[in-house]
Structure formats: C-alpha cells, structure tokens
C-alpha cells in the first residue's frame, strides 16, 4: 500500500468514527428523559463528532492533496468554542422559563435562587 492509500484509510476511519458519534448523540437526544440530559447528549457528542470529521477533512487535504486550509482550522476552533456556549445558553433559558427536571432527579441547586440571580426581569 502506498502512503496515499494508508492516509486515505485513516481519514475514512476518523470520519466513520465521527459519524458513529453523531448517531450516538442522536439516540441520546431521543432516549433521555428531560431537557437537561438531552442537552448534555446533544452538545458534547455532536461537538466531538463534528471535530472528528473536520479533522479528517483537514488531514485529507493536507496529506493527500498538499493543500493546507486555514478555513478548516478556523471552523474547528469556532465549533469547539461556540457549541458548548450554545448548549449552556439554551439550558439556562430552559431553567429560567420553568421547564421542569426529570421526576427522578434528586438535586436542584438553583431551586429558590432563581430570582436572586435573574436580575433582568
């Protein structure tokens, strides 16, 4: 096997791993009981899957095509920074708009402290 075939195989395996992580994230989005666990599943593993796939893309164009793309690196950094922030914001909005936790949850640290920290309303 030549170098190109081996690196192509590595790129294929990395992309396949990323897509399997995306499927796991989607299954978590359907199976988990309340919105906070669902946001946990959707944010973390979807971010990791898109990072894997973009890294595979970067590896393909760097090693095989000899074309180093700064746009993919910028995309990796941007997704890695913004996806957890988006998940945090939407979970915070869900808590402040009164979406209830799963009935088997045993701890709610923010309960009763909502008005003290939520000064905007």
């Amino acid at each position: 096997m030549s170098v190109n075939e081996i690196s192509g195989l590595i790129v294929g395996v990395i992309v396949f791993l990323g897509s399997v992580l995306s499927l796991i994230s989607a299954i978590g989005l359907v199976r988990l009981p309340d919105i906070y666990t669902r946001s946990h599943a959707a944010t973390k593993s979807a971010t990791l899957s898109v990072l894997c796939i973009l890294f595979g893309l970067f590896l393909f164009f760097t090693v095989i095509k000899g074309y180093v793309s700064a746009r993919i690196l910028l995309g990796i950094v941007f997704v890695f920074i913004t996806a957890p922030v988006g998940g945090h914001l939407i979970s915070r909005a869900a808590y402040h708009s009164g979406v209830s936790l799963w009935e088997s949850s045993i701890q709610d640290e923010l309960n009763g402290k909502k008005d003290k920290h939520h000064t905007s309303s």
Partner: protein
Amino acid sequence: MMNILLHISAVIIAVSILIALYRVAKGPSMPDRVIALDMIGINLISLVAVVSLILETTAFFEVMLLLGILAFIGTVAFSKFIEKGVVIERKRD
C-alpha cells in the same frame, strides 16, 4: 475502501439528522426543539464536510464556516427570546 467508509458515514449522519428531526417534531417544550435544531445545524456541517471529501473539492469550506456561525447565532437568539421575551433589548433612558 475510503470511499465506502465515506458513503456509510454520509448515510449515518443523514439518519441522525432524521432522528433529531423527530425530536423537533415531538419535543414537549420549546428549548427541546431549539436544542434539536442546533444539533441538526452541527450535523449539517459534518454532512457538508463528508460531501466535500467524497467530491474531493475545496469549494464548500466557506459553507461549513457559515453554517457554524449561523447555527450559533440562531441558538443564541432563540435562547434569549425564550428567557427574556425579546431578542434585542431597548436601552433604558
């Protein structure tokens, strides 16, 4: 071998977009739908990346960056709307 893996990956990503679409349709509360739409946006980035790997072209890189930025801005705007009722607040005077 790599092409087979890439096609399987594209199918798997499409299936996970469909599952997230089910959550968009069913989700009991509004933030559920927003989270599912955010995840659909993230998966669209990976689908565009896989398609650009299959076609071996560099023409879609801006599309991936743009989808990331638009998904983030949409999620932030929706969460601000759910939390405060407005997206852009008026200045107090």
